């Protein structure tokens, strides 16, 4: 008996603990591995300019993914972020050109995004329909609005300073990078440290229990969609400012890229579990694969293959940490 009891007081780092670590931090481990491989493979990779570029390029996607984390944790989906991005892009360009006011133009997307996000939230809560279908429908509507605003054409913005937001720098670093860092920090705190964040987890984990605990489930849902819309609008403002023109296909595919990054990071599609840092890691894991291919000049036709394999590796790594039954 004594010999077996000794096992219970085993050393601190057990294989079980190592596996649990693997499971929890699979995406970070892969991210680190990729960073190291790329740094060794190419001297152009680990330069300040390249790293800042990677972050800058992925700021719109990261913004959407960070806010989308709240949506997924709360047990919903937002498939309309790309459409909101499109509406935001054309609206920004249109407002800027109509008013000649750059600031007004760039403020339009976040404001519109917020409004459309609230619309989504109300559609989901009032119609009591799953957000997958509701936001799919609303994205069709938003997309059509974007087309109708422009007639499908492109609105060129020829105003000084319009590109400052997306392309300006402060001390060598893009504004966008600063915006992203601040946004991530705030959202991280909101999710982990506030009553609202707690409610998001509760609503996603068990909506009935949350309701019985006095959580305003519907209101929390609306707020989550509003946040997602706001982020999509911010992303649009940055994107439209960068290219100084608004067009209705802008942002196509962003919604799925964001969801993929969120889930790749390890946030549960079932709701109730997740973290902001995970989504950021997910975004940059995919971004690094793309950047690495470009820098190393590999055959782009196998990029998808490699990306798919790395995603499966990430989840396989995480799964290895889950003890069988």
């Amino acid at each position: 008996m004594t010999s077996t009891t000794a096992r219970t007081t085993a050393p601190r780092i057990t294989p079980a603990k190592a596996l649990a670590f693997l499971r929890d931090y699979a995406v970070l481990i892969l991210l680190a591995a990729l960073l190291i491989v790329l740094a060794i493979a190419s001297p152009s990779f680990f330069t300040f300019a390249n790293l800042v570029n990677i972050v800058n390029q992925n700021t719109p996607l990261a913004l959407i993914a960070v806010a989308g984390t709240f949506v997924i944790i709360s047990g919903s989906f937002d498939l309309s972020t790309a459409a909101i991005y499109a509406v935001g892009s054309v609206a920004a360009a249109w407002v800027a050109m109509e008013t000649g006011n750059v600031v007004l133009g760039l403020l339009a997307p976040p404001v519109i995004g917020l409004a459309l996000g609230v619309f989504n939230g109300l559609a989901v809560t009032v119609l009591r329909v799953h957000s997958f279908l509701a936001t799919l429908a609303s994205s069709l509507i938003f997309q059509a609005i974007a087309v109708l605003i422009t007639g499908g054409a492109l609105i060129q913005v020829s105003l000084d300073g319009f590109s400052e937001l997306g392309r300006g720098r402060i001390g060598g670093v893009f504004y966008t990078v600063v915006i992203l860092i601040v946004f991530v920090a705030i959202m991280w705190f909101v999710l982990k440290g506030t009553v609202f964040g707690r409610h998001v987890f509760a609503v996603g984990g068990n909506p009935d229990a949350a309701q019985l605990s006095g959580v305003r489930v519907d209101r929390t849902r609306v707020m989550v969609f509003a946040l997602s819309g706001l982020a999509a609008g911010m992303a649009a403002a940055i994107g439209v400012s960068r290219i100084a023109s608004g067009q209705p296909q802008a942002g196509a595919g962003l919604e799925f890229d964001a969801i993929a990054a969120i889930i790749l990071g390890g946030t549960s599609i079932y709701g109730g579990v997740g973290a902001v840092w995970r989504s950021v890691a997910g975004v940059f894991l995919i971004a690094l694969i793309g950047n690495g291919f470009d820098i190393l000049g590999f055959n782009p036709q196998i990029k998808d293959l490699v990306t798919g394999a790395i995603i499966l590796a990430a989840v396989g790594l995480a799964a290895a940490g889950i003890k069988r039954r």
Partner: protein
Amino acid sequence: GDGGSAGAGSEDGYEIAVLLSSSQNGYNQAVAKGVQEMADELDADINLTLLDGQFNADTQLSQMETAGVGDKYDGVVVVPFDGPALAAAFPLGNGIPVTSVLNPIGPDLSEMEPQVEGVVSTVAVPAGEAAAKQAEDVVTYCADLDPCKVVLLVGQLNAPLDVTREESYREVLEAEDNIEIVTTVEGNYDPDQSATTITNVLQSTPDVNVILSNADQQTKGAQIALEDAGIDPSTVYLTGGGGTTESIQNVRDGIWKADYINFPVSMGAAAMEQLYNALTGADVESYVNADEVGEIEPYATKETLDETPDYVGEWEG
């Protein structure tokens, strides 16, 4: 151009990035082939790196920005997915020269002269002009028909280039009293989708005279729809754009009435050539009319093709 200002590649060689809007697309593949052929032909040590824009404006913008920093590349050939969006990458940090194929880079889709600093040459034809040419031939065909029922089959009506094309079509066709534009439908550059939508249109307009399409894949779908509806496709004016081997054959066989030929291989070669000129300090043509790079007249009908019986087209799509 200011020549080999970068020059960080090997002493006498050049590293060139080829930014395709998608590497999974026949047209882009053909451009890449032309670039490669020219690179091999030129008397220099040229190494090409293909990058895949995945039909995504942001991805390609990232790639252009990445190429624009550091000293990896000496020059870029790009097939812009979204020319206006891509302009944001310019001027490039390292100032290397760029040549653009198919679409211009910059806010104005119809301006072929370089619009941003760093683009040294554009090998293209304005979308609107090409479309107008197609429409003018339709007008000729319709001259004896009243009414002449025309269906416009364009790519995507939320894409600025296609919107421009549709506007050009309408501008030309609406000026003619005998021409009745039945409807505009989207073909999405997909034969299956085009077959579906034309099949539907044929239900309400079985007596269509002209199906004016901007892309061969769509025309192919329209042909299938006509056949399935029991209409001989050669009795309808069918035209497309692209100049694929299949469509050239269709025009030769009289199944299609015309095709606006693109020369992606030749265009890629021309872009490489101009880039090389820029790198070596030779004279650069800032605009190469893509209609003139091929071996034959771009607006092909059975008659024009009969003059060049050996021509088969430059790509499959």
